[in-house]
């Protein structure tokens, strides 16, 4: 993926899980990387905690003029692999696109099919290891950016770190950076050529 292109990203999470925060930080990082147009629009059908939510993001060299929903994303980011059973996240993804998943499973075990790249990292346990736990909830809004930046080259790790530094302070900043960096290092990237992740999975 090259930096002069435009990208459309759809984020799938659960209400309260931090998908909006993750999308906002990534678009901010993209702005630092030189994209003049970035947008992150949450879609609200049900705002209940735990219900599936999606965020529609655009990243472009030019200012964004369209605010409609992203139908055919270049990238789908899934904050919770349980959502794969409820939401068809691979349905409209562009050929040669990318799916980023927070999961402890392999692409094979997740039974993904299609022509796209899959980047998997156990963001949940990376956040847990970094001590990113508030009131018993493990937060994955920064750690999910690890596999996303590991599998792309148009934003860069340094810009994601900068966005996290802008958002958090002190101990919280340390934990968020550590969680993201751990998830970055532990990313597995698999190219699905067509049918399924048989061999590499």
């Amino acid at each position, binding site marked *: 993926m090259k930096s002069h292109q435009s990208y459309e990203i759809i984020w799938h999470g659960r209400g309260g899980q931090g998908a909006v925060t993750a*999308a*906002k930080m990534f*678009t*901010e990082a993209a*702005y630092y990387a030189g994209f*003049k*147009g*970035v*947008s*992150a*629009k*949450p*879609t*609200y059908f049900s705002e209940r905690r735990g219900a599936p939510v999606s965020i529609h993001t655009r990243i472009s060299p030019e*200012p*964004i*003029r*369209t*605010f*409609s*929903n992203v*139908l055919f994303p270049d990238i789908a980011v899934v904050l919770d692999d349980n959502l794969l059973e409820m939401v068809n996240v691979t349905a409209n993804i562009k050929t040669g696109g990318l799916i980023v998943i927070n999961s402890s499973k392999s692409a094979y075990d997740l039974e993904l099919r299609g022509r796209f790249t899959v980047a998997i990292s156990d963001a949940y346990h990376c956040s847990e290891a970094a001590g990113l736990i508030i009131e018993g909830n493990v937060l994955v809004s920064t750690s999910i950016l690890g596999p996303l930046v590991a599998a792309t080259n148009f934003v860069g790790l340094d810009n994601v770190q900068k966005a996290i530094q802008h958002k958090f302070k002190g101990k919280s900043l340390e934990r968020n950076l550590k969680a993201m960096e751990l998830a970055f290092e532990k990313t597995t990237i698999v190219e699905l050529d067509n049918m399924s992740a048989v061999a590499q999975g």
Partner: protein
Amino acid sequence: MGQIEIITANTAAAIAAKLCRVQVISAYPITPQTPVTEELAAMVESGDLKAEYITVESEHSALASVVAASQVGARVFTATSANGLLYMHEMLHWAAGSRVPIVMACVNRGVGAPWTILNDQQDTIAQRDTGWIQMYCRNSQEVIDTMIQAYRIAEQIQIPIMVCYDGFILSHASTPVDVPFQDEVDRFLPSLEDRSGIDGKTPMNVNPLILSDPRPDANGVLMPGYMEFRYRLQQDILGSLEAIQSVDSEFQDTFGRSWGGSVWGYHMDDAEHAIVSMGSLASECTVAVDQLRSEGIKAGVVGVRVYRPFPSSQIVELLSGVRTATFFEKDVSYGYQGALAMDAKAAMYESKSRPEISSYVVGLGGRDVRPEQLAEATLKCVKGPVQHCWLNVSG
């Protein structure tokens, strides 16, 4: 040039109110306006904004509170959406009739029933006859800039202004916004001169009952009747188009950005086919025009930024040269047509060269509107007029 921040339109509106050094805020939370009230309340709480934040039990009281505060000379702010705005309806007339320079952020949302929290522009369009100026923004940068302009315009002509922007589509979408520096805003918008005549010593009756005909007051001075007051409101709101234009030009000199005054054009110089719209939908239309141009259709956008006062001569001028004009709007006057199309058609009656006019109602209650749909619908109208069609609706 200010500081670039990646923020929502709601945050942009809250920051603008702070930059304009509002002195009294009263608002009742309603989705999707809520973050505006939360962020301003936090600014007042922390002391970042030296203002009185009046908590109230309803939108009616919110507007009543800022009317009163404005009447004694304070710079005031409120914000609302949808049914909250409808609940203000009585006080909207009162505010305009009282000639108080209130600026209100209206975060456009569909009106119940059935309940929706999602976007269309029925809420503000339904308030068009209240005597307020209505300005519609196409993105979050325009929201922050229009808020600052609105105080200048409102205080110059003593008429309240609604700054309208689309709920969720803009209110909750994060995009880069150039946030002006405080000292620049201070130079552009000096502190409000107290014109109330209330000094705290001499008791006076504000807004007394008035008779139909002019008559002398207790001091023998001939005072206007109801109709004279209302005639002045009409003359001044019609005349405000000039102020809106000059404030926008002055804003450009200070901040380097112009929003076109009351009406803006996109690729209209050589356009044969115009698309007319308001708010973020008009921005969406510019993408549709790019697509149409790539297919060899000479299309352009006429963006209506100010809906009241209606900029009829500017619209007539832009549309007189085109072959077709297609209207897209997120409102309807039930029993007739879309309000913008109706008004523009009435304006075009005065013109000798009238285009074929088509009109669509789109995106009610948050229904997604895509540029390719707008391009396709426009293409139909290029071939022959389409009368009041609802786009993407299953009958």
